Structures are given as C-alpha cells and as structure tokens.
C-alpha cells in the first residue's frame, strides 16, 4: 500500500531544477510524484485528481519554511565498524537527519578499513538495516590505507562505493596517486584527496603562524596542504582522472583549485563550515575541540574561502563530521584526536553565509545537495519528479543554541558550544520516511 505525503505552502528551492518559489510537493511510494510551484490552484486540482485508492496520506504544512532536497554530505565519519564507541551508523545517520542530511558518505578509516568488498557490503547492509538516511560509502584507495597497493575499487563500486579516498592518511607516493587517478577512469568515480604532505605537517597540531609560536604548539604550514594539492592537480592534469579536493582550508589552496579549473583540469573541491566560521584563535586555551585536520587557519584564509565559495571555486560544503569520545578529547593537545562533530551544526553555520551575502540561499543549497550528488554520480540532491523522496523542511528563521549534550551524534566534540545559530530542519524525509525533528529530544 502506497503512502502519500503532501508538503503544502512551502518555499520550494531545488537548485538542480532552478526552482525557487512557493508551491506544493507530492510524494508517493517513496518518490517525488509532483512538484507544483506558484500555482496553488493547480495543486488543488491535481490533488482532486490524485489516485483515490491511497488512504495513508500525510499533509505537512510548510508555511514559512524552505522545502529543499535532503542534504548530501560527501565527507562523513560514521566510525563503524571498529569505533562504535565514537559513533555508529545508527547514531551518525540520526545526527544527519537532525541536521537535514539524507545522504551520508562515510570515509573508509574504520577498523577494519573499508578497503575491500566485504567491509563495503557490511557498511551498506548495516545502513539498510539501522540507518535513518541513505549511506554511500567511500572506499579506500589503497589496501589498509597504506598508500602502496590499490584496493579493489571496481569490485567495491559494484557493492556500492561511490568514491575513493585515503582520507586522513594521504597517499604520499606520487606514482600510487597517479595510478589511482588513472584506474578511476575505467569506472568514472572520483578520487578524493585529503591533501597533506605528511613530511611537511610532521607532528604539527595547529596552523603554523604567530599564534602557534605564542601557544608553543607545533605548527602545520599552509604549504603542507598546498604542496599536495599542487601535486594532485598536476596528476589530474596528466591522467585525466577526476580529482576532488577534500576540506580546503587555505587561501593558497583556493587559488590552486581556481587556477586548475580555469585551465580546464577535472578538479572539484569542498570546504567545511569550521573553515569559514572560525579561525585558529579557537585553539587558544588549548581547546582540543578546535583541533582538526587540516587545522583552523587565519582570518585571511577564511576570507579567501568565502570568496572561493562565492565564485564557484569551491563546489561543495561538507561536514567532515568526525565524532570522538569525550575521553579522547580530554587529553593533552598533542595527543587528542583531530575532528569536529559537525552534522548537527553544518547547515546553520552555512546559512550564515547567506546572511553575510557570500552565497544566495539557492547557491548554498546547491553546494549541499546537487553539487556533491553530481560529483559522486548519485541520483540524489534534487526534487525532480521520480527522484527518491529525500526532502528537508527548514525553518530558516528559528534560532537555537548549540548544546552538544543534545546532539544525537555520540560525538560531542564541537568548538561551537554555546553559539546562537539560525536554521532548524523541522521535518526531514528520507527515502519517503518522515522524521519529525520537533518531536525528537532536542
């Protein structure tokens, strides 16, 4: 028996179709059945003509809300298998739904690593059974993320992996990276590069600059990121493989990507909310919640990243959601793991870009829906008729205070504690399944 969902009176924004206007959406059988913009009278007629045999109808009044495609996060850590104490597929996808995300792409640095079809199948089956949202795993480029031998990327793609990355353990050997980019051409998937020259970042724990001197912490120079981006861009140019640069954090990185795009090289890039919301100053007081890799940078870098978002150099805003256990973050700064639990703050932090005039609301949604979806070759991130019914209904004006204790993620590690932000998803529909966020423990 099919279910019908009718979302009425919202402001529908679907950048993939160039839609921004008032209207209704009808969902049937887990798919978008109809999008009716600007003609509410037509919607009424259409409803009258709908198949009468569907009795299970839910009408959602989205008056004053933005109705948009469910967000796609192309850079997530769900920690399962192996680190279930930090996060599980269940809790991670719940956090995602609360944040407006209906598609998550977990990175392969689990234990065992997602470097073979068996682990990939485990993640997918687990997500089907326990996940709230869709999960599209990212496989490892190399076996064991050791940077030496290619993983079975073709076989893993058949299982459902959508891209490959040795996230966090960058492929240091240039020849291996070349081969990975070449090999990807047979299958069409992108190679996602965590760009960090480990020999340059050394044991650094924060951005290298006057502040790292002041705090007496070892620094990671912007060059560690930029040297690697340069290499990978050159390899993308040589091979014709698709390169996606993860979490861009420096001015130089933005400029390198911009130049590569102007040259016509097949490269895309993402940044994360923390790289345009805060700077290295968040580290003051040795706050491990602001320890992240690449490290938080300077005001000038933040400015450059906003420019990169504005002019399209940076295609995607991803979370790099990296939940850790409180015990792990309560360690010496040098020993604490890097990462921010980001799924539940990403949208609200990104909406500040709209207020600041960096992006239009439509461009912001584009960078969190159809852009990542297109890079990964997913059929998500749009409200096109026939698409999987992934919808987020956003109360963009509603304020809230970031209280990590209320996160649905197991990871409470955030430097945004106490921030007052605007923008709360009220209802999120994932594959036709309705989640009433308001009803959740908030």
């Amino acid at each position, binding site marked *: 028996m099919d279910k019908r969902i009718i979302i009425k009176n919202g402001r529908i924004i679907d950048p993939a179709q160039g839609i921004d206007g008032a209207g209704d959406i009808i969902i049937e059988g887990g798919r978008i059945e109809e999008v009716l913009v600007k003609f509410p009278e037509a919607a009424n007629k259409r409803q009258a003509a709908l198949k009468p045999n569907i009795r299970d109808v839910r009408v959602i009044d989205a008056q004053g809300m933005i109705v948009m495609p469910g967000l796609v996060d192309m850079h997530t850590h769900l920690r399962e298998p192996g680190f279930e104490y930090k996060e599980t597929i269940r809790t991670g996808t719940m956090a995602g739904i609360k944040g407006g995300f209906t598609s998550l792409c977990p990175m392969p640095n689990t234990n065992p690593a997602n470097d073979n079809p068996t682990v990939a199948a485990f993640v997918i089956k687990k997500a089907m059974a326990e996940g709230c949202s869709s999960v599209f795993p990212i496989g490892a480029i190399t076996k064991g993320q050791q940077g030496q*031998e*290619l*993983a*079975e990327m*073709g*076989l893993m793609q058949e299982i459902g992996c959508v891209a490959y990355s040795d996230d966090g353990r960058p492929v240091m050997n240039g020849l291996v990276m070349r081969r990975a980019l070449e*090999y990807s051409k*047979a299958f069409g998937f992108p190679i996602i590069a965590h760009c960090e020259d480990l020999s340059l970042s050394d044991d650094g724990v924060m951005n290298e600059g006057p502040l790292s001197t002041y705090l007496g912490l070892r620094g990671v120079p912007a060059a560690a990121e930029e040297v690697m981006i340069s290499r990978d861009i050159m390899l993308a140019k040589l091979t014709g493989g698709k390169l996606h640069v993860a979490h861009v954090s420096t001015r130089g990185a933005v400029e390198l990507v911009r130049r590569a795009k102007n040259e016509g090289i097949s490269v895309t890039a993402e940044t994360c909310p923390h790289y345009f919301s805060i700077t290295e100053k968040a580290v003051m007081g040795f706050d491990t919640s602001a320890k992240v890799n690449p490290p938080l940078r300077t005001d000038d870098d933040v400015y450059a990243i906003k420019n990169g978002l504005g002019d399209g150099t940076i295609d995607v805003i991803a979370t790099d959601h990296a939940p850790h256990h409180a015990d792990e973050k309560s360690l010496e700064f040098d020993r604490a793991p890097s990462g921010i639990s980001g799924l539940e703050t990403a949208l609200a932090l990104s909406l500040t870009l709209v207020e600041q005039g960096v992006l239009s609301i439509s461009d912001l949604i584009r960078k969190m829906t159809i852009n990542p979806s297109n890079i990964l070759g997913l059929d998500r991130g749009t409200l096109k008729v026939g698409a999987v019914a992934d919808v987020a209904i956003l109360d963009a004006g509603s304020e809230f205070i970031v209280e990590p204790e209320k996160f649905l993620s197991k990871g409470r590690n955030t430097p945004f504690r106490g921030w007052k932000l605007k923008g709360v998803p009220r209802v999120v529909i994932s594959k036709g399944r309705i989640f009433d966020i308001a009803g959740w423990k908030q």
Partner: protein
Amino acid sequence: MPKDLVSIKDLSLEETESIIDTALSFKDVLKRDIKKVPALRGKTVVNLFFEPSTRTKTSFELAEKRLSLDVINFSVSSSSVVKGESLLDTVRTIESYGVDYIVIRHSSSGVPHFIAGRTRASVVNAGDGINEHPTQAFLDAVTIKEKKGGIQGLEVAIVGDILHSRVARSNVDCLIKLGANVRLVGPPTLMPLHPPAGVRVFYDMNEGIRGADVIMMLRIQLERQGKCFFPSTKEFFRYWGLNAERLQLAEKDALVMHPGPMNRGIEIASDVADSPQSVILEQVTNGIAVRMAVIYMLHG
C-alpha cells in the same frame, strides 16, 4: 628487403605482405614428411638471448634448423656478459665467429637497432624490452589471414597490458599497415597515456570487443600485481578477462588469440582458451613458418 628485421616500422606494405605470403608457403614445407629445406646450408645463425625465453627461442631454433642453418645458442647465464663484457664487445666477438644472422632478444628497448648498425650480420629482433616483437606480429597476421582470408577491414581488439607489451606494439604497427581497425582494451593504468595514432582505446572491455572479428589477449605479468597497475587478479579478470559470456559480444566467428604463455583464469577463461574459436596453438605452429620466412628473406 633490408639487411635486418628490427622494426615493423621499417617495412613497406609490400615487404610485410611478402613475409606473410612466404610464411604461408613455408607452412606447406612444414606439412611434409621431410620438413627441412637446404635453403641456407652453410650459413650460420646465433641466437643471442639476453632475456629468458623458451618459446620464442625454441621456435626460432626450429625454424633455423628447418632452413639447414648452423645454429649457435648464446645465452646470458653462460656468457661473458656476466663477467662484465659490454654488449658491443659481445656482439663483435660473435661476429668474429663469422655468423651471418644474429637473432637477439634483450630486456632493453632499442638493443636490436643498436646492434644492427654495428654489425655486418643480419639482425632479427626477437623482442626488445617493451618496444617490439615483430615476428610475433607476423605470425599473428598469418594466423588471421589464414582463418579470415584477409586482414583489410577486420576489427581487431588487443586486450590487457598494452603499456608493457611489445606484442601489442608490433601488432598495432603490423595490423594498421595491413588495413585492420585496431582497438586497444585494458585498464587505464596499463594503457599508454598517449596511444599510437590510428587506434581506438577502450577501458570497458565489453565495448572494446563488441563486434570484433579478432580478440588478441595479452599475458598479464603477475609481478605487475602490487605495483598499482590493478588491485588483484580477481578484479582484473572480472573487468578485463575474456570469458565465454563476454566473448558473445564479439562476432560469432571471432578468433581468440594469445601469444602465450597463458594465465588461465586471470586474462582468459579455460573454456574460452580451449574453445573452437581459439587459434592459440595454430599461432605457435605459424611462428615457425614466419621465422623461416623472415630469415630466408633477409638472405635474399
């Protein structure tokens, strides 16, 4: 004919065709009860193999004996090369024996060219590095011509490790010269970034062999595993191995070829290798006739 056969690129279409036709007539000789002709009695050939080889060396040696040549085998393990002698000195020493032909295989590309310019003997390239293997291409052409009646206009797919394959390179030159349409099929890691002019490149094997008249499988060198050319033999076979199902995509009477030695279950499924469409053993037979033809013609 030129003094040497080092590269197919040096040969005109007429010379190439005449080698193939001569080989076909030598094939008749090989069918006789007495398989030897006195064509080159009193002449001497040295087989100078700097790289291990059983098949090619045996094939050359048999061809030479069928032509009544005196045959000297010079293999590296027992030679002065291990004592530090330069390649050129080795060649000059051998030349001083009074040999007429030098059949040479070497792991470095360009060695036959280097030798040919420095000796009066006729040099035959039996495989140099990843560069060329001309007699393999001729024997493949003979096999195709015999089975298909001609080569002009045929769709020939060469599949596997194109990047390191001298067999592929010589076949591309030879087949294009003879008017075939050549497709190269394999993982992008084993494909030259800059493929030779006039070929079509396919990473998707199903597309690459669709409608092909001839499928030439190449040997995957297992030592390439772990060097980032492909993740595993399992994955290689899945996407670039020739199995019976995939073979259906080619023409019904498509020939299946392989230069040997085969890795069954890695680049070619057993049932395909042993199928009626497979001409792999005929390639071996034709190799002798081709090598007879080449040496005989360099004489003239």
